[in-house]
Structure formats: structure tokens, C-alpha cells
């Protein structure tokens, strides 16, 4: 009989602070799209567009993923994260880095990009080392463990490239071509964010939909295919831009994306929880966006770029679509759980406690989803047609959805913050 001792998770304030910052990043990104609509339609190669891009991938998505992983990594893989205390102070390093990095980009202030970029890189590398040092004690080698391991390797490569480009922007050592930037973008989007989302999706789909699929060959084969495609794409972008190798490896990634959608679909077919929740509809929107991004990626890889705004549309489909819908949907599970854990778990067994679904306002969640979906589709169409007014209008709709999402999340998170304040006050009195 195996008995597993609980208490692996860190206190909720650790994931909570990253998730709350990610939420703020989401809102700022949503507001930034309509504000920068003319720039987004004009070109992808602009400091303001770089600022918005890094706000979304670092301030919103990476912060959220760090928070979610602090919570999920220990319980899903049955491992204790090394040095959670350092995760608390590292938050400030990372938050300060991103808070300076994004405006420096926006203002085209190259010393700031180099300085705050260094802080951001330090924070990211610390997180990666925390996770990697925890791996030797992993007990449950779920596919998520392998996906995340690969994702962490790509994360290190992403910030390595980014750091070199940031320093180079200030010191001007070499010319940075579009394809060199594309390599950095794909390392981050497909490598770090993509593989993390894929791995976490397998685990959370099993958990929340009660889906059990014993045959994981497709999941592992796809892990190999995705990594091989990405490695080939990055190397060909760097060494043979414009060659047929780029389209070959982009096609490998495209096939892998299709297989991932199929894999999640097969997993969902085994679910015992039949009713589709608002979280799962977000998942469908996310997977559909992945397919849209894949299609756009193939067009761009072929070298026939209809307009610069298509490059922005490609990134937007991945960021706001694939990652955005997935993060919003999964937040409807993760944030209520953190709140429940903090507020009610101590009373469970002694008095009635609410269910997680009772902590979320479903009507607000559905309305938020509808607005995000409509706004996303409108912004994407506006970018593809190079219509700034359409991007602006749809961006406002999207921002409305993001605001409703934030309201729902804040209702859950505020009691958590208040409880923490009370705990600190109690500690002071005791001292």
C-alpha cells in the first residue's frame, strides 16, 4: 500500500501574486490593442508593437503560467518545488523587470531595454532553475512532465536570444533580420508557451472532465514531432532563410498542431463529465485559434506575405486566441480552487462549504467569453484586411470581455488578499 503524504503545494499567495499580475497584464494588453490599432495594421517591426508583444507574452501569459505552475506542478507530478521562498522574492525581480522592459520598448529607450531586459532574464532563469532542480524528485511522470521539461529548455533559449537582441539594440553589434526575430518569436510561442500549454492541457482535461485515456502514444509521438519541427524551423530561419527548409519544418509543426487537436479531442471523448462547461468552450476556441494560427504560419512560411499586418495577425491568433482562450478558460478552474483552498478547505468536514462552481458567476463568465470571441474574430479580420477602425472597434469589444473576466477573477481573489492581510496582522500582534 502506498501512502503519499500531502502538503506539497506552496501557500496560495505564491501562485496568487503571479496570477494577479498576469491578470493585470491581460487587461493592459486588451486595452493596448485598440489604442495601437493603426500601428498594428501598419507593421510588426515597430517599438510600440514590440512593447505590446512583450506585455502579452511576458506580463500576461508567462506570469500566469508561472503562477499556474507553482500550483499545478507540485500536485500534478507529486513533487515539492525547490525553494518556494525564492519564488516570492523572484516575483519582484520579474515584475520590476517587465514593468521597466515594456515601457522601454514603447519609448524606444534602448538602455532601458538592456537594463530591464537583464532583470527579466534573471527572473525567468531563476524560475526555470527552480523547476528544473525539482525534477529529480518527480514521482508521477505524466506526459505533462516531459512537455514541461522541453518547454523549460526552450524558455532558456528564448530569453537567451531575446537578451542578445536587447543588448544588441543598445550596442548595435550586428544587424537583426526579420528571420532572426522570427526565430526568437517561435522559440517563445511554440517552444516555451506552446509546449507548456499542451502539457498542462493534457493534465487539466483529465482532471476536470474526468477523462482517462490509457494509450498515450500519440501524445508522446507528438511531443517528438513538435520539438523536431521547432528545432528545424529555428535552425533553418537562422541559417537558410527563404529556403524550402523553412516551409518543410513549418509543415512539420503544422501536422503536429493538427495531431495535438486530434489528441485532445480523443481525450475529451472519453470524458465522464458529459456536460460541457464554460471552461471547455474556451478550450474549443483556443484549439480553433491554434488551427487558424497554423494556417497563417504556413502562408507566411511560404514567403508570400500579403501584408505586414498578416504577420501581426499570425501572432495575435496565437497570443489572444490559442493562449488567451486557454488561459481564460483554465482560470475558471484554477482561481476558484485557490480561493476555495484558502477560504474553505480548513472548514471542510466540519461545516458545509461551497462547491467551486458556486464561487464563479457563470453568467458573467459566458458573457465574457462571448465578448472575447467576438472581439478576437473582429480584430483578426481587421488585421487581415488591414482595417485599423475594425481592429479598434473589435479591440474595444475584446477589452470589454477582458474586463468582465477580471471582475469575476477579482471577486474570488480579493478575499484571498484580505485573508493574507489579516494573517500578517495576526503575526505582528503575536510578535
Amino acid at each position, binding site marked *: 500500500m502506498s501512502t*503519499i503524504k500531502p502538503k506539497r503545494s506552496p501557500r496560495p499567495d505564491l501562485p496568487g501574486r503571479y496570477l494577479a499580475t498576469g491578470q493585470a497584464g491581460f487587461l493592459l494588453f486588451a486595452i493596448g490593442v485598440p489604442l495601437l490599432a493603426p500601428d498594428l495594421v501598419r507593421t510588426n517591426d515597430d517599438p510600440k508593437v514590440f512593447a505590446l508583444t512583450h506585455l502579452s507574452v511576458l506580463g500576461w501569459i508567462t506570469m500566469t503560467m508561472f503562477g499556474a505552475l507553482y500550483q499545478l506542478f507540485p500536485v500534478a507530478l507529486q513533487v515539492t518545488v525547490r525553494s518556494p521562498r525564492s519564488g516570492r522574492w523572484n516575483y519582484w525581480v520579474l515584475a520590476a523587470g517587465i514593468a521597466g522592459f515594456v515601457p522601454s520598448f514603447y519609448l524606444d529607450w534602448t538602455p532601458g531595454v538592456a537594463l530591464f531586459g537583464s532583470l527579466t532574464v534573471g527572473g525567468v532563469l531563476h524560475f526555470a532553475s527552480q523547476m528544473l532542480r525539482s525534477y529529480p524528485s518527480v514521482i508521477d511522470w505524466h506526459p505533462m512532465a516531459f512537455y514541461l521539461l522541453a518547454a523549460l529548455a526552450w524558455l532558456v533559449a528564448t530569453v537567451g536570444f531575446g537578451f542578445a537582441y536587447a543588448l544588441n539594440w543598445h550596442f548595435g553589434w550586428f544587424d537583426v533580420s526579420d528571420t532572426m526575430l522570427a526565430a526568437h518569436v517561435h522559440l517563445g510561442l511554440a517552444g516555451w508557451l506552446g509546449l507548456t500549454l499542451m502539457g498542462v492541457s493534457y493534465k487539466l482535461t483529465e*482532471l476536470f472532465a474526468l477523462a482517462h485515456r490509457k494509450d498515450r502514444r500519440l501524445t508522446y509521438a507528438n511531443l517528438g514531432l513538435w520539438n523536431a519541427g521547432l528545432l528545424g524551423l529555428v535552425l533553418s530561419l537562422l541559417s537558410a532563410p527563404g529556403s524550402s527548409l523553412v516551409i518543410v519544418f513549418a509543415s512539420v509543426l503544422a501536422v503536429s498542431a493538427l495531431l495535438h487537436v486530434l489528441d485532445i479531442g480523443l481525450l475529451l471523448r472519453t470524458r*465522464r*463529465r458529459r456536460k460541457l462547461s464554460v471552461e471547455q468552450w474556451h478550450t474549443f476556441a483556443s484549439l480553433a485559434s491554434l488551427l487558424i494560427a497554423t494556417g497563417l504560419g504556413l502562408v507566411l512560411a511560404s514567403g508570400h506575405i500579403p501584408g505586414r499586418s498578416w504577420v501581426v495577425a499570425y501572432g495575435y491568433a496565437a497570443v489572444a486566441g490559442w493562449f488567451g482562450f486557454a488561459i481564460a478558460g483554465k482560470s475558471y478552474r484554477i482561481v476558484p*480552487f485557490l480561493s476555495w483552498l484558502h477560504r474553505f*478547505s480548513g472548514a*471542510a*468536514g*466540519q461545516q458545509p462549504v461551497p*462547491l467551486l462552481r458556486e464561487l464563479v458567476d457563470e453568467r458573467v463568465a459566458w458573457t465574457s467569453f462571448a465578448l472575447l470571441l467576438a472581439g478576437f474574430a473582429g480584430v483578426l479580420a481587421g488585421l487581415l484586411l488591414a482595417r485599423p477602425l475594425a481592429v479598434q472597434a473589435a479591440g474595444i469589444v475584446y477589452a470589454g470581455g477582458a474586463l468582465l473576466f477580471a471582475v469575476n477573477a477579482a471577486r474570488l481573489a480579493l478575499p484571498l488578499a484580505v485573508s493574507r492581510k489579516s494573517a500578517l496582522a495576526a503575526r505582528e500582534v503575536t510578535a
Partner: protein
Amino acid sequence: MTEPMLRLPDELIASEAWAQLATLYDPELGVDLVDLGLIYRLEVSNGEVRVEMTLTTPGCPMSDSMPEAVERSLRLIPGVSSVTVDLVWEPRWEPEMMAERARRELGWL
């Protein structure tokens, strides 16, 4: 003078314990632990309760809190002198272990 502690026979404690566990809900699924088939064994001997339970998956986020909730709820039963909760992963939980009521609740039937 202290009141003599009410002490139920072991059989009654066991029956009360099952009833108590049926009031404990998995907050994510909204189904009680007994109907979910998460309680593998419950034994009572001289007021000492021993529970063997599992969760739907080893990576369940509730693995920290559910066993504690089980322990707290069983301690409320008069005559229970100690509670031991073993969280086990063998045999691994399967959806087929759910009672019909749980299957209906989740829309499986």
C-alpha cells in the same frame, strides 16, 4: 464531575462514519466522496477509525485538503477516539467505481 463520554458501539460508529462521509463533497465535481467511490475501506475498532481512500487521479489538486476534511468530519462522531486516513493509489480509481447517482450527476448516464 465530568459527564461520561457518549460512546457508540463500533458498528454504529461505522454506520455513522459512512453517513458522515456522504456529506463530504468533492468541491470540483459536486459529488460526495462515497458516491464517487473514493472511500475504499472503513474499519472501526474500539473507537479507532481507519479509512483507506483515494482521489480521482494522483495529481488531484485536492490531495492536500480532502484527507484532512475526512479526518475532521469523522472526529465529530461521538465515541471516536482516533482517526487514521490513508491516501492510497492502488487500486487506481476508475470512473466505473462511481455509484449510479454520481454517474447521473455528471451526465454520464
